[in-house]
């Protein structure tokens, strides 16, 4: 796989110098110091490394950086706008929907992807959609509440 010299991350074209077969996760973390995306399992089974590629969630530990091309990468660092938290980030704070916080960025980005697909997801939809993300501390119930809360705030604000 050829070398990659540029990616678009959080709205900016960023120069890099990386072997194409390296994982997107490693490039984000180790080359660009965007460490909000986490290594959890290396096989796409925990969701800690979730980022959005053109708005869709991917496990960045499974994505060779050479396959990203011109697609737009959104990481947790790029989610808030001008210091204003995304409603789901705020909802995580309001519900204390974390303990150690290691799964949080992946949970939030996966949740954001869900809220873009479904304006007010049912509990069953949230569970089905989020089931690939692990919170070993067990705050699932709070995360579900946070997603519902954010959904209500987003659709309330859109009216």
């Amino acid at each position, binding site marked *: 796989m050829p070398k990659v010299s540029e990616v678009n991350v959080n709205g900016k074209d960023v120069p890099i110098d990386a072997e194409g077969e390296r994982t997107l996760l*490693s490039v984000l973390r180790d080359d660009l110091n965007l*460490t909000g995306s986490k290594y959890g399992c290396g096989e796409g089974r925990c969701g800690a490394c979730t980022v959005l590629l053109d708005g869709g969630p991917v496990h960045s530990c499974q994505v060779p950086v050479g396959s990203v091309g011109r697609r737009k990468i959104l990481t947790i660092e790029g989610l808030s706008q001008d210091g204003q938290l995304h409603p789901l980030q705020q909802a*995580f*704070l309001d519900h204390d929907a*974390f303990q150690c916080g290691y799964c949080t960025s992946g949970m939030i980005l996966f949740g954001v992807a869900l809220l873009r697909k479904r304006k007010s997801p049912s509990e069953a939809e949230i569970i089905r959609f989020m089931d690939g993300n*692990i919170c070993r501390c067990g*705050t699932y119930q709070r995360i579900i509440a946070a997603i519902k809360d954010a959904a209500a705030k987003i659709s309330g604000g859109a009216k």
Partner: protein
Amino acid sequence: MNRVDEFLIEPERYEMFESGRYHFSVDRRQFFKQLGCGLVVLCVVMPTLAQESGGGRRRGGRSPQPPAEIEAWLHIGENSVVTVFTGKAEVGQNIRTSLTQAVAEELRVPANSVRLVMGDTQLTPFDMGTFGSQTTPQMASRLHKIAAAAREALLDLAADHFKTDRASLALSDGKISKSGAAEFVTIGELTKGQKLVKSVTHEGAATPATDWKIAGASLAKVDGRDFVTGKHKYSSDTSLPGMLHGRVLRPTTFQATLQTVETAKAEALPGVKVVRDGDFIGVAAPDVLAAEHAVEAIRAKWTFKPQPSNAELFDYLRKNASQAGGRGAGEATGSIEEGMKAASHKLQATYNIAYIAHAPLEPRAAVASWEGDKLTVWTGSQRPFGVRAELAKAFGIDEKNIRVIVPDTGAGYGGKHTGEAAIEAARLAKGAGKPVKLVWTREEEFTWAYFRPAGVIDINAGVRDDGTITAWECHNYNSGGSGIRSPYEIPNQKSEAHGSDSPLRQGSYRALASTANHFARESHMDDLAAMLKMNPLEFRLKNLKDSRLRAVLEAAAESIGWKTAKGGIGHGFGLAAGAEKGSHLATCVEILADKATGSVKVIRAVSAFDCGAIVNPNHLKNQVEGALVMGLGGALFEAIEFENGMITNPRLSDYRVPRFSDIPKIEVILIDRKDVASAGAGETPIIGIAPAIGNAIFNATNIRLRSMPMVPNGLQG
């Protein structure tokens, strides 16, 4: 008040890491210079007290206690910012928040003016480690007292400042004023460019829980914003200039020794450094993938020997059992023989407990950097000072040349007491001559960390027709003695924990053996109730005097609707209760079990919990919920499988942990006992869920499951 022994560190043998005796290695003068002007308050523990609270060390029978030990300190800067220094580590249990509340409460300052420096061996006083649910009963109460002493010192300074009587002064919101007057002075201004140092002992007067305003309230996680924005730097996120990425070559099995190794190919790779030291072989490379490729390029042959497999585990543990030892060992009252004679119903059963993994989402990780013979390591650990001692031993250097920094860590659950990644990263950094980051892969974490002990538990019990338990004998082989003592009133009792030869490396885990011992006991209790045709709740209450345990049991039962709860075929209710480390828990569940498909689904769970005066209700609820979810994994499906020195399910795709689709509706009932000292809450809430589920399965199907996990392959009707 709680008895001292309830707060002793559990002396399980696998938790007995002897760290070196503490010598104050910080150049204190230098340190205080860095702090700048302001007031420093030191918490000095007198030797007798240090000895009482240091159960682990006392048993180690080491050198005599130093004259006094400093356990925490705080600094009030001229800007009124309060900085607290404690050797405890934040691993997600939210003690950074709860300890902030303790200090803010006593100093009458806003919580956001308090900063905590934690788990840094250069900046914080020695601490044995963050485990055993000790932070709240010990460190929080110490911080209450030193902050209270600091408050008194500030009032003295303010009395001088206003040239008035102390009694006429009021302190709130970080400001001191004469009562009724508008004029005030901030606590930071009081030191007037001086450096003041005050030592206090434990005798300071802390605010009683009934008067708490900041403690006792649901303060949100103090640095929560850093976690939702990805800003927080875990040790695995730490980066240094010129840093390389490490990877260790692991043997093919446990207990293997290196026969031959060929590293030339790896060494020829660009930017790769191979480090070999005895049987340790690792690489440092420019990026993670290059390190992976370098390790793959190494050819090594290992000599290994046959080892037990999980198919024979429980026989093996029993066969290799030793005499009783550890907590609860040989504890006996009355005569089992007499008690069994008096019984009209008898029940003997064996319970098997599998090894399980902590699987913290952040695996072991460390960044190590040498400057000459001085070593600095960032690592996720529950024992920063223990890791420092391990590093000192591994490299033969003085502890004062080592600094271990523990950033708030991606969880531990008792699984991060040891410093493997720190030692490996430091060895690689030494060999490479550059800083090295080492993040264990998930497979390494599942293989080379340690596990919650497996165990075999035998219970033999007798009851009279009226429901009185007459005899109770319990033997635990290998998993430990925590929670082995029955809380029920039984005249003839014997509980023993026996060590064994564990085929796998085992260690601490949230609540230790308490989960296993409660699973066995509370399952057995249900079977006895069934033999007697008694309601399981009534049967427990009949044999229970402990008023706090009765209260949680009644609260949980009422909330789930125990009295009117009607199960049926495939639909059941179950309950369990227990007390550990000064806190009391009852858990009730409602489940659906389908013999035809084998599925077991917990649809509702209620935990009632009493750990004394509540420090932070929302965070406490979060802990109780989280422990229940974690316990559900070990109850239903989590198990480490191994064969001949290899873990055969070392991935999250093979080792099943609870996910969104596994969790029930969880309700938590907190009982706030402001008259009782706060106990820790990170562990005990895990102990009730497994037996409650087992009892509900029995209720729904008439099938009694006596192994944890209960349904790894579904319910086998």
